[in-house]
């Protein structure tokens, strides 16, 4: 099952490696990890998405995250009310952009054009769990040249 975990950490060098190595030491692949400063510049918020085949091991990882000296708080959003979003950049050809599916997504404000020069154009989507699937499905139909995602950011409701 996929978990979204928020880790509030001291904004110091080294902490990212500590957090990441708790997952990697067990052969756990992190789906995405997103870090940024919070309203307090000394604290960073990490949003980690991880697929945990064994819930017990994930419990252990969460405890061990808490044990890291520079970790202030660990919250598993999975069973809590929260909002999550992710930004997706896609580069497609100018012709592809004119395809019906794409222009419809643009018209519906599900995709926006952020760069439009030369032979390619770059689109941006801000997705949640449902729209992510829909948009990726449509985009794959027309052929993507490049795709870059930020990873999920999440906030407690």
């Amino acid at each position, binding site marked *: 099952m996929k978990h979204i975990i928020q880790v509030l950490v001291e904004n110091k060098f080294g902490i990212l490696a500590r957090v990441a190595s708790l997952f990697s*030491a067990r052969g756990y692949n992190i789906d995405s990890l997103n870090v940024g400063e919070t309203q307090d510049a000394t604290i960073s918020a990490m949003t980690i998405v991880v697929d945990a085949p064994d819930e017990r091991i994930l419990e252990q990882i969460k405890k061990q995250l808490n044990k890291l*000296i520079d970790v202030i708080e660990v919250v598993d959003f999975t069973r809590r009310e929260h909002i999550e979003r992710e930004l997706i950049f896609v580069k497609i050809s100018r012709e592809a952009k004119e395809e019906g599916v794409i222009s419809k997504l643009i018209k519906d404000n599900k995709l926006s054009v952020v760069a439009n020069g030369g032979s390619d154009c770059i689109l941006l989507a801000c997705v949640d769990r449902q729209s992510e699937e829909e948009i990726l499905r449509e985009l794959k139909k027309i052929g993507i040249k490049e795709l870059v995602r930020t990873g999920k950011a999440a906030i407690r409701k």
Partner: protein
Amino acid sequence: MKGAKILIESLLKENVEVIFGYPGGAVLPLFDALYDAPLKFILTRHEQAAAHAADGFARSSGKVGVCLATSGPGATNLVTGIATAHMDSIPMVAITGQVKTSLIGNDAFQEADVIGVTRSISKHNYLVKDINDLARVVKEAFYIARTGRPGPVVIDFPVDIQMQEADFNYPPDVSIRSYKPTYFGHPGQIKKALQLIYRSRKPVIISGGGVILAQASPSLLKLAEKIHAPVTSTLMGLGGFPGTHELALGMPGMHGTVYANMAITECDLLISVGCRFDDRVTGKVSAFAPEAKIIHIDIDPTSISKNVRVDVPIVGDAKNIIGQLLEELNTSKLPDTAGWNEKIKEWKKKYPLVYKKTGRRIKPQYVLEELYKQTKGKAIIVTEVGQNQMWASQFYKYDYPRQFISSGGLGTMGYGFPAAIGAKIANPEKTVVDIAGDGSIQMNIQELATVAAYDIGVKIIILDNGYLGMVRQWQELFYNHRYSGTTLKNPDFVKVAAGYGVKGKRVDKEKDVKSAIKEIISYKGPVLADFLIEPEENVFPMVPAGEAINRMIGGMA
């Protein structure tokens, strides 16, 4: 003040008395500051030994051990020692030199990514990048090392910062918002635990290293006597509960006593204090304490429910929590456990730890029994790893905390001798004996130079079986006697000792054991004694790997 001096002054503020270490290019300024500092410096002959000595100093004294090495190879040589301390939760501060900050990451001469390398084997680590952080870093390092679940903290200290100038202000206190260990048990959990105690007719206490670290021994003794619960002490916990007490069950697990393992298997309540249920203790987890409710007292929440299911977890300091339990305990609600204690007494009578003397070849168990007698059970016993370690845990009885010192979690061969050096420096008035194997001793035998140079009166007893005995035992029992890579062609240890200027002695007959031990412990300087023992003697009882702990080989006859 220069960075190097700030570090030394900070160590003095932490009441550090002794540093174990080894110099090199990236710590020259530090060694210069050390030259006329009021601190004892012990030059070991290998950095690994410096780390183990700091660890032995810490285990035997309860203080934070300090070791120091140069960058690159000096630092990587410390790694085994840091990992050893980490696995056994030993408070230690390891200081490593680092290349100039401007060169970090450039593969500079003698550069190693010490922060990266020690990340998973230390409690915390610091790279000092700004001289103005230095005093705070040292203060935090000592605080983190000794509080909560203790452990080693590494300070990586670039050589240019050692030479920079700053004002020295040692912070009076520490506040780390992200590090707040829990010290007292949750009152609700204390109540729940008491309810289980009131319902138990067959309780057992399992006492781990946490009891010693938390100085909870006197409280534990009180609790055990009040609720009439027998106590089994893990390898790390030996001495935390008096080994000669009538409630003492000895060690549980793979080479534990039959009665400890039977008691765990049949008990209806297991109270674990400062024990993390290592797989050497539990054996097959599904068959571990199958009838029991489990109360798990531990300062580290990650230890709880990690290996065994727990009914009442209580996070906090062992001494405080036992104190809380004692305060609320209503003895009139305790059920009668006389039947249970009677049963245990019978097991003890029926299945004692045994061995057979031969009249000729020396049995290692006899050496330990004789050592126990002649030191009146009061020596500090340090061990290497292997059969020697298990015999030392079985045939010497430990009545006091910090009396038995052994690498439990990591099982580091080569640990014992340097750790004994640290223990002897912390306890100059006590007899300190390293119970060694002929394999293990050769992993840090160069420290004979250290004991000779400083006249450190450590006694080494090699239980010399000509084998990597513990591995050989497994090959004998589970690999059809195929002794692959386990036979040793040893040097003449007595001559080796002589070469280093240390008194050596060889003992090869049972009848000489008594007088030899007398000679060893009455000699005031360091001694290395080579006891040629029965080569294929095995450690029994034994629970084969992955088996239930009541399925023991040997010792049941």
